[in-house]
């Protein structure tokens, strides 16, 4: 029988080729053996040999090279299945290496050179210890080997969360990656955003049952607020109570859905997702816009700062000369009322600051009920009170205080008596302000 093959064509979809490189000696009697059924379904084994100079395709050559065959002769036993014209070939030890020999088709011209009574599969666990065909019972057998760490069962199977390494000799942690979807951008105060964490295996498939932990941190937009006002929450759904952490296992689709609920105050929220066996942590942010009203600009002028630190500061030195004389006159004439000067010269920059405080409170915050503005509202209202500003009286650019021609003087005397000092002392209380601002005197 001519078993020499002159020409081959191999493809990957018609046959299974088992390559038997050597006959494995019997392991002898073992106290316990692991047995599996031999491969079945075939009918005939053939020895196929390629000529020395056979032009293998590169993929085929790569497939054969691990077999350490002599380069001048390659012999294989071919296990031909029951459908000769659709036979799969697989070389033993190269289960992923399949190719088709067209000569095994219906009109195959060669016959079997050897027949093997049974072919054993390549073990997936500890593949270096092969199965051996036992003709007595018709099974493939090998000694039962102790399972590696994190593996149990017969044959050994890695525990959940572990997988065999490339050699199939030990179980290693499965490695996953985690990602976050649905976050980013802006969520308005008290509104919610649906999002999810996704855990994937290395091959990209979803990992179910992975324990995911989500944590939330926040940088508040405005300092000095209670954390409760600026911290959002994470929860399973929009109706459940949330907190800054949320931990749960992924579903069958590898996802852990969750809901972010924005707080009332503004801040930048960072959500971090980790999971068991994940090689990474996922992170994304959500901005919760704060109050639509800007805070007051910081004070940079040292002179303004002096007044800011002491709103009752009275600077009589920079009153105009005539105002100094008028004030001295008033102090003298109204001595019985213990006149006390609360405000005299006011630097224009400080006056501008008062205007800004007044407008910030009266025009932007007083009737602003945005939850996110609550903290700023409290802050500016305090500022407003500190400066003894009045809602019904707006400080204006060009105030007489800024040119040293106005003073605020508290006098414990009846209003008519106080007004009687004008025109003698030339300090005048504007009639429209006598009720609302009775201490305000201007030079006239």
């Amino acid at each position: 029988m001519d078993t020499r093959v002159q020409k081959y064509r191999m493809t990957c979809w018609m046959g299974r080729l088992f390559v038997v490189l050597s006959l494995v000696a019997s392991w002898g009697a073992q106290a316990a053996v692991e047995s599996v059924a031999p491969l079945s379904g075939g009918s005939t084994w053939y020895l196929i040999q390629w000529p020395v100079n056979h032009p293998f395709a590169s993929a085929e050559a790569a497939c054969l090279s691990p077999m350490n065959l002599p380069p001048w002769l390659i012999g294989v036993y071919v296990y031909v299945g029951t459908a000769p014209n659709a036979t799969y070939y697989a070389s033993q030890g190269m289960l992923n290496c399949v190719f088709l020999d067209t000569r095994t088709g219906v009109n195959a011209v060669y016959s079997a050179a050897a027949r093997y009574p049974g072919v054993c599969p390549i073990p997936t666990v500890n593949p270096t210890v092969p199965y051996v065909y036992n003709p007595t019972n018709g099974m493939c057998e090998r000694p039962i080997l102790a399972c590696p760490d994190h593996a149990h069962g017969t044959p050994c199977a890695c525990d959940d969360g572990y997988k065999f390494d490339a050699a199939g000799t030990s179980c290693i942690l499965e490695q996953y990656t985690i990602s976050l979807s649905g976050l980013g951008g802006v969520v308005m105060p008290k509104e919610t955003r649906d999002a999810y964490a996704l855990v994937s295996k290395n091959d990209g498939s979803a990992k179910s049952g992975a324990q995911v932990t989500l944590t939330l941190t926040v940088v508040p937009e405005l300092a000095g607020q209670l954390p409760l006002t600026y911290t959002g929450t994470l929860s399973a759904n929009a109706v459940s109570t949330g907190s800054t952490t949320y931990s749960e296992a992924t579903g069958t689709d590898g996802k852990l859905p969750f809901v972010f609920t924005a707080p009332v105050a503004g801040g930048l929220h960072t959500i971090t997702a980790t999971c068991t066996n994940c090689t990474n942590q996922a992170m994304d942010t959500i901005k919760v816009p704060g109050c639509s009203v800007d805070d007051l600009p910081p004070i940079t002028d040292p002179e303004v700062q002096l007044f800011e630190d002491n709103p009752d500061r009275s600077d009589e030195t920079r009153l105009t000369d005539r105002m100094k004389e008028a004030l001295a006159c008033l102090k003298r004439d109204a001595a019985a009322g213990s006149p006390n000067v609360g405000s005299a010269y006011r630097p224009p920059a400080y006056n501008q600051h008062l205007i800004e405080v007044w407008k910030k409170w009266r025009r932007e915050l007083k009737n602003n009920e945005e939850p996110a503005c609550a903290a700023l509202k409290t802050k500016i209202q305090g500022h407003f009170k500190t400066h003894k500003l009045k809602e019904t009286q707006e400080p204006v650019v060009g105030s007489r205080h800024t040119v040293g021609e106005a003073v605020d003087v508290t006098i414990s005397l009846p209003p008519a008596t106080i007004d009687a000092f004008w025109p003698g002392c030339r300090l005048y209380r504007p009639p429209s302000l006598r009720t609302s601002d009775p201490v305000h005197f201007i030079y006239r």
Partner: protein
Amino acid sequence: MKKSVTILMLRLIGWASLAFVSVGLAMAQPPVNVGVYAEHRGGKVVYHYRVTNNSQDNITDVWIGHDTKNDNDDNNDVWELLELPTGWLLTASIPPASATSPPGWHVYVIVTEDGETHAIVWEVVDKYSPRLLPSQTFTGMSVTLDKADANYITGHADILFPEKRQKPTSLTVPLERLDTTPPTLSVTLNPSTLWPPNDKLVPVTATITVQDDYDPEPEIKLESITATETLGAGDIQDAQFVTDDRNFSLAAKRAGNNMAGRIYTVTYSATDASGNKATASATVTVPHDQGKK
């Protein structure tokens, strides 16, 4: 075929232009409209304000007489109301008899620190007060003054939207005068003929009928009495011009050579509180004779 395609294209362009113009008109609508009209009541002048919110934001404050110029410059703000009405205190709301407010709102005066100018402010009382919502119109804002003050009708309204998420959070708009139609006025005089021409003074009574679409009591004034002949001293007696004087005396006198006789023309004016003025005249004749017809 070509011609019909061209016509179709022209029509399409026309429709598109029309749509563009329509959109432009729609966009031209101001976010807030503040209308004002005035009426005389019981010798006082009542200014009524009607605020329509065309914006997408809630309104909490309506300041009348404050013009911010819609910029961030504090230097050019204008406080338009100059004279603080008698009895109004800056430490409290305007006297209830002098103002009305929508439910949940109140009204008071904000004055500048120099005490020389002010604005009338309506605002929500507290956070539970109803805001002026988008598409909503508030009436019920009125102030009553002892005398007319044109600044209350020709000035500006400063509207605050403090809860607006985008800036600016206020808008100054000019007041829109709702009443632009003068009253209708008619005058009849009795008697309308003075006879005999004996140079005596005859009392004349004017009957005036006036109507206005906003002001139930337009201000009536006797503007003038003229004649077709040169008037002598004392020919017109007891006439108080520029007041609502409807009773006066005219001399039953005419020149002997004036065949047409003397014709007095009496002119009244009616001015509604929004400043729209109408005049009407009637005549009293002193005929030359009682010629047969």
